[in-house]
Every structure is written in C-alpha cells, then in structure tokens.
C-alpha cells in the first residue's frame, strides 16, 4: 500500500529539509518527495518508506521527526491552491508541535539523570491570605 509521511526537522537540527530531499534523490528508493517549509513529504510503498525512514532518522536521530499523513503529497482535494486558500485545519497542530521540537530533541539527546520538577504552584493557604488581607487593610 502507498503511504505518505511527513519528515519534520527540529529548528535546531543541522539537517535541512533540502538535505533530506537530496539524500532521497541520491538513494536507491523509488519514492515521491515534496519539500515544504517545515520538512519533506514522502510517498511510496509502505516497506520502502519504512526502510527509508530509518535511514533518514540516522541523519540526526534526535532532531528528525516522522508523522503519518492521510493524503498523498499535493493532493488536489487538500491542496490550498485548489481549495480556496487557507491552511487545512490540521496544519496548525503541526505548527504548534513543531515549535516544541527543540525541547523534545534536547530531551532525546540527554543522557544524564532526569531532573526533579518542582510541583506546580498551589493556591495560597487560606490562613496566609487572611494575614495578607488583614495586613493590607490595617
């Protein structure tokens, strides 16, 4: 079955979408490649894509991310050029998560001890609030 995947690079990765595209062009794999502003879209037979994904990940194991996509690249049913403009709704989710990728990349590459996260701030105890109010009013 033909499958489509996004290959998205963290903004801090040294690998550019064009590097990935070049690697695929120069490879033995018969896949369709489309460069986008945040990465590349690849389309091909499932086994081929899975093998390719492994090789692409190796370029920057912590800085490259893969996401499944329902539509083949440039599908006129989803292409904004053909469908009256406006990004498809799901695009905003990719954009939101892309902004988080540097955090995830650094965390994936990190090998030390996992830090303790201070607990989220709790509301002020009512007693303390009472004191503040009394002091403020006096």
């Amino acid at each position, binding site marked *: 079955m033909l499958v489509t995947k996004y290959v998205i690079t963290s903004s801090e990765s040294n690998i550019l979408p064009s590097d990935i595209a070049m690697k695929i062009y120069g490879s033995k794999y018969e896949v369709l490649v489309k460069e986008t502003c945040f990465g590349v879209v690849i389309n091909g037979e499932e086994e081929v894509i899975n093998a390719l994904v492994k090789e692409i990940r190796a370029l920057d194991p912590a800085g490259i991310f893969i996401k499944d996509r329902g539509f083949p690249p440039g599908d006129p049913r989803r292409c904004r050029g053909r469908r009256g403009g*406006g990004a498809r709704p799901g695009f*905003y989710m990719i954009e939101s998560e892309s902004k988080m990728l540097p955090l995830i990349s650094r965390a994936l590459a990190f090998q030390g001890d996992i830090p303790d996260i201070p607990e989220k701030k709790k509301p002020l105890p009512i007693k303390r609030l009472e004191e503040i109010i009394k002091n403020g009013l006096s």
Partner: protein
Amino acid sequence: MIRIAQLSCGSEYSGIQKEIERAAETVGAKIIYPEVSLEDILNVEKTFGVSVSSGDLNLAMARAVRIVQNPDLADAVIVMTCFRCAEAAIIRSEIRKYIHEHSKIPVLSYSFTERTTAETLLTRMEALVTTVKYRGLLAREKQKGLTAGIDSGSTTTKAVVMRDNVVIGTGWVPTNEVLKSAEDALQAALKMAGVAKEDIAATGVTGYGRFLVGKHINARLIQEEITVNSKGAVFLADAQKGTATVIDIGGMDNKAISVQDGIPGGFTMGGICAGASGRFLELTAKRLGVDITELGKLALKGDYRNVAMNSYCIVFGTQSLVNSLALGCKPEDVAMAACHSVAEQVFEQQLQEVEVKEPVIMVGGTSLIEGLPKAMEELLHVLVTVPKNAQYIGAVGAALLVSGLLED
C-alpha cells in the same frame, strides 16, 4: 466569480462538504477559506471576545476576524456548524452577528446534519449570491412600465400586474398543476388589470415552481423568494430605507429576513416542521369548522392562555386543541392558541437567528390570519405591520425587480 467564505465546524466530518461546494457551484460561486495564522487562532479571546474548547470553532472565529479586517477577501459568508451542538450554536450565532455588525458582507447561517444536501442549501445560497451580484437591481425602489410577477408557491400561486409603481391586477389560485395554476393566476391578474398578455413588457417569477414556470413562460427574471420577498415587503410597507425585518410564514417553509435598505443582510429559512406553518392553521380552521379566512378574526377574540398546548407538532398539537374543545374551551381561545403556537415556534427557532429590527413586516397568505401577527406582536413586543396586498408579496417583488432589468 462570487467568493463565499466558509466559516464552519464539522462539515467535512459530517460528509457534507461536497454538498456545500456543489450548491455554491450551481449558483456561480466558489467557497474560499480566509488565511489565518496560528497566533490569530490563539488570540481569538482578545480579537473576537471568546475562545472555546473546540479548536475548529476558534479557527472559524479567527477567520471571521480576518474578514472583518479585510472585507475585500470575500463577497459573502456562510457560517455552518453541526445541528445539536450547543457550543457551536452559540459561536455560529455570534459570528453571524459579528460580521453583520462590523461589515457590509451578507451572511448566511445554517446548522446541518449528515442529511443536508446541496438542494437544501441551494435557495439559501442563491439568495446570498443574488444580494452580492445584483446589489444595484435590489436597490431599486420603484416599479416602472407594465410588468407582471408570478409567485409559484407550494400551496398557492399568486400573480400581479403592475403599472408605474401601482398594483393594478391580482390573481390567486391554489397550486394544483404548477404550470396551469401559474397561467390561471396570471390570467386573473390580467383580467382585473384590463390588459392583454402581449402588452406585458416583462415577467418575473419566484417561488418553488419558479424554474418550471419561468422556463415555460420565458420569464425575464427567475429568482428565489428571499430577495424577492424582502423587496416586495419593503415596497408594500413603504420601508425601503433603513432597517426592516420580514417574516413570511408559508405553506411549506418559513422565512425570517433582516433587511437593510431593501437588501437582505441575513436570513433564515426553516421548513422541517409542519406545526410551524400555515398548514397547522388550516387544520385548526377545519377542526373548528370555520373558513381559514375567518380563523384570524375569531382568534382576535380569544386568549391562548386558556388552552393547554403540550406540543408544537401538527399531530399532537392539534390533538391538544381537540382535547381542549372537548373540555369546554371556547373556539376563539383555541384559534388564538393555534396562532400563538405557530408564532412562538417561529420566534424561538428562527427569529433568534436574525437581527429583529423595526419595522417588523409580516407577509404571505398567513399574515392575513389576524391572530398570527397579533401573537407575533405579543412575543416580540413590537408593532407588526401587515401591508396591503401582503399575500401577493412574492409576485409584487418579482414585478418590481423585473422592471429594473428593462432599463439595463
């Protein structure tokens, strides 16, 4: 090409996006989606006034803000969300109001189910496109020359002949065979006007049977009822300038139109329930053993509070009326209860979706059932105007509009 901006939630997942696009295409329009950024979506609380938990509704609001900021982006707007979604119903209504208040772009609001088809959307979409395309024609205030208008409705067919801004002939027949009824109504109007068919410079057609009748008589104008009726209403009520609200309770569907300077700004068209139609009143008249023309006068003497109605439904609501008669309720109270029931349904289900601004003009055959405008007055707390010839509204609007085409 007319660009209709679609602000919606759920249409793709309801499987009806294709139907929306098909309806737009049929009326020569294209659906577009205004470009917004992620920041625009995240900022809707500040720009629009609220953000909700459903992201696609926030996206719709962000797109509305963008249209108001750049009115050149779209010629018309449709706001569509899933039927039975409370979150969406609130936002849909607020988006419609927001665009209505902050721009001059006409808006159509609709709640769909998976059963919504292009055909359901067609008349609404046609009206939306007409208000954009023929703004000049719709701004026309006077009828000139000798023209005719035919309103081929689901229950009755109406025709008028107009000469230099005056209605000089009218015809009214029940709709049996669409073409024959149109011919009969027109003949009656011609006879009353004392003119020959050949002397009519142009004819305009509206109503359910408009395409069939229009083609048959080679009409110069074939137009949906929303734009035609609002034009006819403001003409007859002498309210061509400023705001107006037109309410038309028909045999098969109801229309509520918010009008500005004779041009529809927003409208709703409902037609799911027979209990909110003229049919319900017809049935009540039959049960009371009075002619439909007498029902209104009878209702004026009654008080709906004396009758317990448990349902708006044409079956169960009528049952309530029959039961009340058996319990000794007065026929006039029952007549008013029926009028109140219909008015209340239109008030609850449709008038919440348009801006009700005075004057409120009731038109169509049902407006002559005096109890109905009175019930509406009580619900809206405003005076309701029923202009002379209100039952010929569509035919008058068509005759008026078609005279505008003669000059072009």
